[in-house]
């Protein structure tokens, strides 16, 4: 169920250049069922910045009623968010959307998780759940450069992890696809979140594979009412369009026209 709650900041820290890890606590955590869902945050009580910001859920801890997000402080809203301190309240609407389905892969199979930049966070909870289930995740994570790499260790603890940076300052050099081309394709399903060109490249690279891709769009309401976040679809589905906020953000590969 979607709820609105004043959640409390448990901790916040910078984990890479302009990249923050923020943990909130509240009852809303109990409704977070799927990796890949997101929350819609108010960053200020004032009327400016006005709109909520969509941020993916990166990890969930039902026991402590905590969840964590990882985001880049870039514009006005995320910068304000990065100033929140433990004890501060954040107005959270969520959990929103449909996440990554983990029932598409069987115990003992391999799953390929491909993340690009600030698209990496939702893959973390996904990977944890796959490991819990007995699936073997392989992580291929692309970043611009060393100073914005995060969670390398955390992913390594869950499974095989390849880091690639555009400028080669950490891991191998280039794009995730440079790594993928060299990997065996003995995985059952691939999951990805990152910039749209990367998602498009994946669909081309694995035309026969089952894949689940998480998309981004500018949002208004975040719950499906305003039609801000629509994407055109391919012939693969009947609907003429999908809404990223309520039909997605995760779609099976081939559904969204990229």
């Amino acid at each position: 169920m979607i709820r609105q709650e004043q959640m409390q900041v448990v901790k916040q820290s910078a984990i890479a250049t302009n990249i923050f890890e923020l943990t909130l606590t509240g009852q809303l955590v109990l409704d977070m069922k799927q990796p890949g869902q997101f929350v819609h945050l108010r960053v200020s009580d004032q009327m400016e910045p006005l709109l909520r910001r969509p941020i993916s859920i990166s990890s969930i801890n039902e026991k402590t009623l905590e969840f964590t997000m990882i985001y880049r402080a870039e514009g006005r809203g995320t910068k304000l968010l990065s100033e929140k301190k433990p004890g501060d309240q954040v107005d959270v609407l969520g959990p929103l959307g449909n996440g990554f389905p983990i029932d598409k892969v069987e115990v003992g199979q391999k799953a390929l998780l491909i993340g690009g930049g600030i698209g990496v966070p939702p893959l973390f909870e996904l990977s944890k759940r796959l490991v819990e289930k007995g699936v073997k995740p392989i992580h291929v994570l692309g970043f611009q450069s060393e100073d914005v790499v995060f969670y390398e260790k955390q992913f390594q603890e869950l499974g095989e992890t390849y880091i690639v940076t555009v400028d080669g300052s950490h891991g191998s050099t280039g794009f995730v696809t440079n790594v993928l081309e060299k990997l065996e394709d003995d995985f059952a399903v691939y999951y990805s979140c990152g910039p749209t060109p990367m998602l498009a490249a994946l669909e081309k690279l694995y035309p026969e594979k089952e894949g689940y891709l998480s998309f981004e769009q500018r949002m208004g309401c975040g719950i499906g009412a305003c039609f801000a976040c629509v994407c055109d679809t391919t012939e693969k589905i009947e609907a003429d369009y999908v809404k990223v906020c309520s039909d997605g953000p995760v779609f099976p590969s081939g559904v969204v026209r990229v």
Partner: protein
Amino acid sequence: MNRLATLLPGLTLKNPIMPASGCFGFGKEYAKLYDLSQLGAIMIKATTPETRLGNPTPRVAETPSGMLNAIGLQNPGLKKVLENELTWLEQYEVPIIANVAGYTTEDYVTVAEAISQAPNVQALELNISCPNVKQGGITFGTDPLIAEELTKAVKAVSSVPVYVKLSPNVTDIGEIAKAVEAGGADGITMINTLLGLRLDTKTGRPVIANVTGGLSGPAIKPVALRMVYDVAPKVSIPIIGMGGITNIDDVVDFLSAGASAVAIGTANFVDPFICPNLIEQLPAKLDELGFNTVTDLVGRSHRL
């Protein structure tokens, strides 16, 4: 007696607060959050004769205390709205105001005639003010003669009272208001969005794919309020006011300026519970201000 009750042509409202068209879809999403029967009414999304896919994305952009949108009237088209949306809405005890849009007089007439016959549609809202469609839309709202003619044409076929939604992008909104009143409008809803632009500073390109978009939210409240205050004494038909309402004081201000009811647009995105919250806060606010009923408050600024 219900202190919040508001009687308008075709509309018996439990309270004067309703979501604005385009900011509430056809209600399904908000129905998951609260009981829609609490609402004074629902202004559903603009309906056109055929399915419309709207503009390319990005369709929204944030601005200081406001936002731009250029959705482009995306909607499933008359047939599906009647079959899927309005039928579904029948489960709630809430009057529906159907927002009617199009490119030609024909379009408006077609939609108006059919949709006004749906059992829960108690009024139409003629959208002659959408700034986001290239032809039609806005021109209907900026020329008094054309606005009057269109109102007449729609009145001739509608089975329910017709409200006309005015554009703020005009030199003299009072003139347009008087024209649609002369055309037989039963009420006025105002304002639609102000035409605006945001550029991506890095690239110089418009942020919104459609180039310009409609400005809404708190930023426009002073303009909207001025227009309601200006139009109210010039017409004898009621006004449903909107534009930047985000809190109970804003509701009071629009009623004071002469609106008989109010609609909430952008604020639904900021706080999805805004409509029921404001409805709940209204009685205490009336007490605080020393008014017995909402009707007593309407137009008070003109009586001082």
